[in-house]
């Protein structure tokens, strides 16, 4: 038997097939373990980059080299969430010096956001723990005092599809003044306010602005925008997918609501993102404002190894985890198929007579009636009866229970030929029991064939599962090859390149997996026929 294995392994087709299988096993185990998002269909994994982002490696092609990757400012979590004192230095505080203002910015380690609701979206950073920046502004004036916190960076890409800006502010003390806080992006083309919050006094002050007052009034009339509340953490945010909630939509009438990211980042060059704190004092004033979780994100139009799907989820994670599921189901149910199929095939072939006839009828039944219908039936009843909440296990069982007929049939016919051999008859004549002969003579001579058969079965079972998922009857709410494909139907359009970076890898994986197992199975079978 060792000799046989070596002969098989020496064949070129078996090597290619094994290499393909090994590739998928690696993707399904190591890749799935390394995947950053274990379930990319969970909304918490959405928007890792812009929806329909291309794979990052397309940037090597000339036409795509200017596509932006994810740009997050500040880049690291400790800086965003003000976990380290240097987070304060990231932002340059500019005091215009109006009205003798005295601006002090200090790092506060012991005070941070609390009592915030869960983030509505994945790009929102809500860190409810200590660490914030305290800005104190004091003085005496009647003219508005504006304080800027800015950070400049160089943008060298094509316009992005999406960007997001957020900050958490806590007005601890506002005495003798009204307060408004803006988030804005500035370039040589202009200043674009992307988020705005004001307390009632600040709102009144903005609305009394001679030029823009009526526009501010329209902005604040929007009931979905909450006012700035004192002594409480306020989330100040703007996202271009809801650009009608951005102040620029009201104030910069030239910006089309459909092309906010394209307008704001229309050219390459130096950009400034920042926060604008506007104080409207009347006489002596003192403002103390804590802030934390400041984050600007330009969503990449390219992302990772395989881009993103229409939800902005990481396709590489989807692919790796779904390959893992596919192999789990393929190998798991193939094991069940092998056990049942071999056992009943041996039984039918060796015992013959009535047992053989009945079993043959069962084999035919399972082969002739479309397996998919039986699968759907069993799947439905097991789902209703809550047999197991683990859908993967359920599918392994169902596929295994329904898939063995082909194996049984061939094992049976093989047993019939082996049984007539003289050494089996000799063993029988010497008083060998049925079980002994089956184990000692019949099984070793059918083992290779059985392995070849099961090899053929694995891709068939994987495809059967993919089909069930595709019909949304199999595994739900997590990525599998079938789910990925069924989600594509309504999302493939020329504008997103037919999502080729999802469509091609998944389709070719199914084909390649079939080919790989086919090559190995054929190699085993051919060597086996030469062997006997």
């Amino acid at each position, binding site marked *: 038997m060792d000799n046989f294995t070596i002969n098989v392994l020496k064949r070129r087709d078996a090597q290619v097939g094994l290499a393909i299988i090994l590739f998928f096993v690696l993707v399904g185990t190591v890749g799935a373990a390394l995947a950053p998002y274990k379930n990319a269909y969970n909304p918490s994994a959405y928007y890792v980059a812009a929806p329909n982002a291309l794979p990052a490696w397309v940037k090597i092609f000339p036409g795509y080299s200017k596509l932006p990757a994810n740009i997050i400012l500040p880049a690291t979590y400790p800086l965003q969430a003000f976990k380290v004192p240097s987070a304060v230095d990231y932002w340059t505080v500019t005091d215009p010096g109006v009205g003798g203002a005295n601006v002090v910015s200090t790092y506060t380690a012991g005070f941070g956001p609390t009592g915030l609701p869960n983030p509505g979206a994945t790009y929102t950073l809500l860190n409810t723990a200590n660490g914030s920046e305290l800005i104190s502004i004091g003085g005496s004036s009647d003219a508005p005092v504006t304080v800027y916190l800015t950070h400049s960076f160089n943008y060298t890409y094509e316009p992005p599809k999406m960007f997001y800006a957020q900050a958490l502010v806590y007005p601890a003390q506002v005495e003798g003044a009204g307060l408004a806080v803006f988030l804005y992006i500035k370039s040589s083309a202009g200043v674009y306010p992307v988020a705005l919050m004001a307390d009632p006094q600040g709102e009144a002050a903005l609305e009394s602005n001679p030029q823009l007052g009526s526009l501010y009034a329209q902005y604040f009339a929007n009931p979905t925008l909450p006012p700035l509340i004192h002594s409480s953490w306020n989330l100040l945010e703007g996202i271009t997918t809801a650009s009608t909630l951005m102040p620029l939509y009201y104030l910069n009438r030239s910006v089309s609501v459909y092309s906010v990211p394209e307008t704001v980042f229309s050219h390459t060059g130096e950009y400034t993102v920042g926060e604008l704190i506007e104080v409207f004092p009347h006489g002596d004033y003192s403002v103390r404002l804590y802030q934390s979780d400041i984050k600007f994100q330009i969503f990449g139009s390219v992302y990772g190894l395989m881009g993103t799907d229409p939800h902005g989820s990481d396709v590489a994670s989807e692919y790796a985890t779904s390959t893992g599921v596919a192999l789990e189901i393929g190998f798991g149910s193939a094991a069940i198929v092998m056990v049942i199929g071999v056992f009943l095939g041996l039984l039918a072939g060796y015992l013959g007579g009535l047992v053989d006839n009945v079993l043959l009828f069962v084999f035919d039944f399972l082969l*002739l009636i479309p397996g998919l219908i039986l699968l759907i*039936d069993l799947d439905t009843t097991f*789902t209703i009866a809550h047999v197991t909440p683990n859908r993967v296990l359920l599918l392994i069982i169902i596929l295994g229970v329904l898939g063995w007929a082909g194996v049984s049939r061939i094992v049976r016919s093989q047993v019939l030929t082996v049984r007539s051999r003289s050494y089996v008859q000799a063993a029988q004549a010497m008083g060998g029991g049925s079980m002994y002969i089956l184990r000692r003579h019949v099984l070793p001579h059918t083992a290779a064939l059985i392995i070849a058969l099961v090899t053929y079965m694995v891709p068939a079972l994987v495809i059967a599962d993919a089909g069930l998922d595709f019909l949304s009857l199999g595994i739900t709410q997590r990525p599998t090859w079938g789910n990925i494909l069924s989600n*594509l139907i309504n999302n493939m359009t020329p504008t997103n390149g037919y999502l080729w970076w999802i469509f091609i890898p998944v389709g070719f994986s199914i084909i390649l997996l079939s080919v790989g197992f086919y090559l190995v199975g054929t190699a085993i079978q051919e060597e086996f026929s030469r062997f006997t």
Partner: protein
Amino acid sequence: MFVVTVRFIIGRLINRLITLLMLVLFSFLVFELIPQSLGFKLGFFFVGITQLNPKTAQAQLAAVDAAEQAYGLNAPIPIRIAKFLYNLFTLHFGMSPTYKEPVLTVISQYLPNTLVLVTVSLVTTSVISIVLGVVAAKSFLKSRWKIGDKAASLTSIGAYFIPAFWLGIIMYVVLAAQLHWFPINLFFALRGGGLHNYTGVEYYLRYLWAASLPIILLTIVGFGHRQQLIRNNIIEEYNSAGYVMYARARGLDESTVFYRHAFRNALLPWVTQVGLDVAFLIYGVFFVEIIFQFPGLGIVTTEAATSFDIPLLIGSTFLFSVYILVVLFALDFVYALLDPRVRLGE
């Protein structure tokens, strides 16, 4: 001779009927015995609820109990089996809880579409597999470079490996959704998006237009297996069968030897394979109907499964099986015609 053929046919008929009976028993096992033995109340199936609503649980449970009473679901198992059998064979499938209509009415609306797809593609796959199989075998046996064989075999093996739903998405998105060479769904083809009401010849032409893409897909994924089978069989028969040698020794010309002897014998396993391929086509029809939005029994069955509409599921399972067994029985006739051994009772 005639008697022998009749006996063969009757034997097959009995065999097919037993298969159908087994399927009904399988349905009974799956939809009545297994849920019940797992502690699930069958009445839920007939009322059409799967999860109790806490507010109206009392009323729902009463309805479930009433349904169990009305349908006799707590009767002894033999009586229930007999009733189950009687209901199916007299086409009394009951009411579909989701459609609020008798199951038979629902199925008879959608069954014709599926039958058209499966039957037509069964014919097209058969023709293509025979033609390409003969071309490949001839090329393998006669031509030096075997280009015809390589091309035909590569096509059919390739087509066999491509998953139907993957290829279907490509065809739908490119040919129907973007290029508009084909309608985006059956309703659009027949009613022009609700603007037209086509009748007469135009209706059937437009129906064919909508059905062509699904049929093409089913044909592409369905013919490969049988093409390879008939190719290999012809080559084997032609090269090694004794009667081929004998025919050649008698001085028959090559095309007679090829078609009347080798080809005809190679056709027998092919006929057996058709039976298995019907099951495969029905497998494919589920995907094809969903991808091309061609409303047939496949879509109805899938929806019945997702909405736990058990009476509808039982009905469609039964009718799919009847269809397959009718095709298989028709093939038994073909087999008897082709194989003189059957007629002569050997």
